[in-house]
């Protein structure tokens, strides 16, 4: 149970409906098949929350298909939400792993809830422990469509905050970031794999917002980026075994 592994997450920050390319809900399902969790944060406009809440139904669908967590917030709550969603999703994934291991030991239909309270404590300690020590790879996808323009400063702040939270863990973190639409392409790489997020200011100033919202293609791009990274890494050192451990758990 002490085997360490890598958790893979996509964190999508968007304020609206996709309108270009593949269906993002289908792409989220594809990500999940590959052991990648998709979390979505829907950003509400302070002035038109009612109208927008309806449009953000897609947010919930993507996260639910992607095995992750969704959260709809006003801009000012973004910081605390981004780190909370990321951490919650990690715990949820790990709990899924631990639950399925328990089932293997104790038989199907057996869950942590069925253990007497005295025994549960030990299981939760294992979950806590893994959450603290496992490595984490996050690809952040930022909706840069026109309506997000005046929110990008807050998005940037919340990502720096996320980096403070995650870098306080014992495990290693790697982040990568894309914007959709980009300047030249539908999906553009803003930051390649990096352990920190505090050099974001320069990156964000380069963002220009466009009219389309290609959410599906962005998720697809992120899945590919994970695949490439994984194959590169297994060339360098053979950590296929620990990866396998997590892939089976993506559910």
């Amino acid at each position, binding site marked *: 149970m002490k085997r360490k592994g890598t958790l893979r997450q996509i964190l999508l920050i968007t304020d609206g409906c996709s309108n270009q390319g593949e269906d993002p809900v289908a792409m989220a399902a594809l990500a999940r098949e590959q052991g990648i969790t998709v979390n979505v944060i829907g950003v509400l406009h302070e002035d038109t929350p009612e109208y927008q809440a309806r449009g953000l139904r897609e947010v919930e669908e993507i996260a639910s298909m992607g095995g992750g967590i969704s*959260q709809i917030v006003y801009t000012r709550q973004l910081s*605390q939400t981004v780190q909370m969603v990321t951490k919650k999703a990690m715990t949820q994934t790990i709990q899924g792993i631990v639950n399925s291991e328990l089932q293997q030991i104790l038989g199907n239909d057996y869950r942590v809830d069925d253990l007497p*309270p005295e025994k549960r404590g030990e299981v*939760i300690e294992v979950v806590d422990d893994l959450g603290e020590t496992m490595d984490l790879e996050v690809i952040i996808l930022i909706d840069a469509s026109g309506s997000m323009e005046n929110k990008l400063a807050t998005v940037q702040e919340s990502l720096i905050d996320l980096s*403070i*939270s995650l870098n*306080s*863990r014992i495990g290693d973190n790697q982040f990568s970031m894309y914007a959709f639409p980009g300047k030249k392409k539908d999906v553009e790489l803003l930051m390649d794999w990096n352990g920190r997020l505090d050099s974001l200011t320069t990156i964000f100033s380069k963002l220009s917002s466009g009219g389309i919202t290609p959410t599906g293609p962005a998720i697809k791009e992120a899945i590919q980026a994970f695949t490439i990274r994984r194959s590169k890494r297994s060339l360098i050192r053979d950590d296929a075994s620990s990866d396998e451990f997590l892939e089976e758990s993506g559910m």
Partner: protein
Amino acid sequence: MMHHQMNFSKSPVCNLTPGTVIVGKWHKNRYTLMRRLGFGATGAVYLSKDANGNKVAVKIGQDNMSITSEVNVLKTFSRVQGNVLGPSLIDVDDWYYEKKQYPFYAMEYLEGENVLSFMKGKREEWVGILLVQLLTDLERLHKAGWAFGDLKPDNLIVVGPPYRIRLIDVGGTTLIGRSIKEYTEFFDRGYWGLGSRRAEPEYDLFAACMIMLNMAYPARFEKKAQPEKQLAAAVNKSPLLKRYRKIVINGLFGKYNSAEKMRNDLVHTLSTYKKQAPVADQEAMSRSVRRSNQKKKKTKILFETLLLASFLFIVYMFYLVSQTM
């Protein structure tokens, strides 16, 4: 935290009516709910009566994970030497309600007042005394290998008299060296750009200082462009914190590596600080000199009464401080 709060408020176990009887699935203990004390992200707390009619607090949650890790913490607390840190744990069980299973635990009911409302109308000595008591507990907690994490007025209750501050809601308590489990922005060093979210004594001491600032500024304040300067200015401008200025600044900027050191400085300040007559008083005095002798006499009597009162207060203060040791 919004999402979960909104979710939980709709949970059937968040809105149970007084009189509801809860019987544990494993241990079969009965609890009769009297009223809801409050609810948060992980569950609702009800003032209840156990089978013998004793008052207890029962926390019912939805999510096994967070309830169980709170129970884990409360169990460790009971193993720490000395007074109990936090409410003592009485029972842990599950409850079947409307075909679903909900985890719950019963704990000691701490009858008291929230620190901020306790502080209303109190003089600055009380800031120091409550903090000395809090730091005593934090020191023991840190020595046992934990940081409290989500330290804020909502999680502190003043019981008594004799008044004693107590920690409640242990959801944020984290093993030292790990990342803080739960925090609240205003009290979080990471939010103010003054350090990481790694659990260590300095993290809690920062929050303790922010609690002092919250006593001085009950409405709190928003973060500005230069948080470091902003916090220092807030400390310096507060009359309530005047005598603690240096200590608060040191705590905010990570200069204390143990709760004990900060506590000792506070005790020292509390026992040696000489209050200078505020400027306004001095003016009033010099004016009264020009007035009649009779007035002078009156002032003198008043002064002596005040002196006696503050002497008695100091004696009482030492009594309270000694309560914490």
